[in-house]
C-alpha cells in the first residue's frame, strides 16, 4: 500500500548502526468497540511480520501482534554496517496489506 508511510532513520556510532522504523499503522486489536455502533467491534488490523534486510540479505525477522501500539517504532542495532549499505524494511499485516521503506547508511 502506497498510502501507508514507512519512515526509516539510521544513526552510526562507532561500529554500531541504529536503525529506527516508524510505520503509520492503526494497529487495531479487534477488541475496541466501534464508536459509531456499540454492538460492533473495529476489525483487527495489525502488522504481523516486519523484516529488516541489508543489501538484500535478510538480517532480522520479527513477529508483531495486536499488543504493539499504534504507529509503531521498531529499532535494531546493526554491527559492522558500512556507509552506503542499503537497508530495507518490509512489513505485512493481517489484512494482506504490506509496505516497505529503504534507507542508506550514512
Amino acid at each position, binding site marked *: 500500500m502506497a498510502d501507508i508511510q514507512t519512515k526509516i532513520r539510521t544513526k552510526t556510532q562507532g561500529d554500531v548502526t541504529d536503525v*529506527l522504523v516508524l510505520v503509520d499503522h492503526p494497529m487495531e486489536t479487534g477488541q475496541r468497540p466501534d464508536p459509531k455502533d456499540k454492538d460492533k467491534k473495529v476489525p483487527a488490523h495489525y502488522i504481523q511480520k516486519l523484516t529488516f534486510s541489508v543489501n538484500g540479505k535478510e538480517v532480522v525477522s520479527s513477529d508483531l501482534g495486536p499488543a504493539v501500539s499504534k504507529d509503531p517504532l521498531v529499532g535494531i542495532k546493526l554491527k559492522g554496517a558500512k556507509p552506503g549499505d542499503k537497508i530495507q524494511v518490509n512489513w505485512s499485516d493481517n489484512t494482506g496489506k504490506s509496505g516497505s521503506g529503504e534507507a542508506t547508511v550514512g
Partner: protein
Amino acid sequence: MKKILMLLAALGVVAGTMPAAMADPASDLKQFQAFFKNKFPTVAFDEYSNGLYALPGLEEYREQWTISNEFPPYELGLSLGKKLWETPFKNGKNFANCFKNGGKNIAQGYPYWDEGSQKIRTAEMDLMDCAKKNGENFSFLTADLSKEQGPRVQLAQLTAYFYSLSQGQRVKIDVSSPGALKAYEDGKKYWWQRRGQLNFACANCHMDLAGKNFGGNQPLSAALGHTTAWPAQRLEWGRLETIHQRYATCNSQVRAKPFKHGSEIYNHLQLYETYMSSGLPLTAPAMRN
C-alpha cells in the same frame, strides 16, 4: 508566601488596568516575562520554547522527550501536511501561492489583526480561506472541527507544516492598532478569569503552579512559550492537533464548557498568549505531554 504575594500583585495590576481604556501590552509583556524569570531563575529565556521540559523538577520528562525527539512520531502527520501543502489545487496554484514569501518565515507574525475584516486571523483561518478561494472542497472547510477529529487533524497537519517552514523564527506580533488592542484585552481577560467547577483561571495553573502536577501526573507547563510549539503532538493523543483543540481540552479539564474550535475568544486568547511569548523561537511542530 512570596510567590502568592507576587501573583496577587500580578492580579492586582491586571485588575488595575482593566477599567482604563488604554491597555499597555508592552508593560504587560515585561511583567509577564519577569514573573517567569523570578520563578525559574535557572531557566534560560529561549528554553521556554521547549515547554514544560525546560522547567526544573521535570528532568525525567525531559529525558523521555529528548529520546522521542530522535524520531518523533509527529513526522508522519507532518509529511501528510507537507503533501497537502505541495499538492496543486485544481486551478494549478497551491497553498504556497496564497502567502507572502511562499509561506516561509512568516508564521512568527500569527495571529494578526486584519483591518479589512476587523478580526484576529490565525494561520488556520488563512489556510482555510486559501483553499476556499481556490475552489477546493477539503473536508475541514465544512466540518464541525470541534467534533470531527479527521478533518481537524488534517487541518492541524497542514498548519503544522506551515509553522515548520518558520521554525526558529522569533515570535513578533503587532498589537498596536486599536482593534488589535481590544482583542488583546479580551484575551487577557480570558486568561485571568476563573472558570469551571474547579474555579481555575489559565494563570493559576500555568503561572503559579507551573512545573507542578495537576491532579496526579499531569505536569503543568509554563505559559511562556505555550504557543511556540503548536500544532503539537501530545503523547496522550498520538496525533497532531491544533491549539484550539488544546484550549478546549484545557477548559474541560477544569470542568468548564469549552468553546467551539475557531471561536473568536480562542483567537483572542491565542493572541494574548502569543504576544506574551514575544521573542521566543518557534519550535512547532513538537512533542508534548
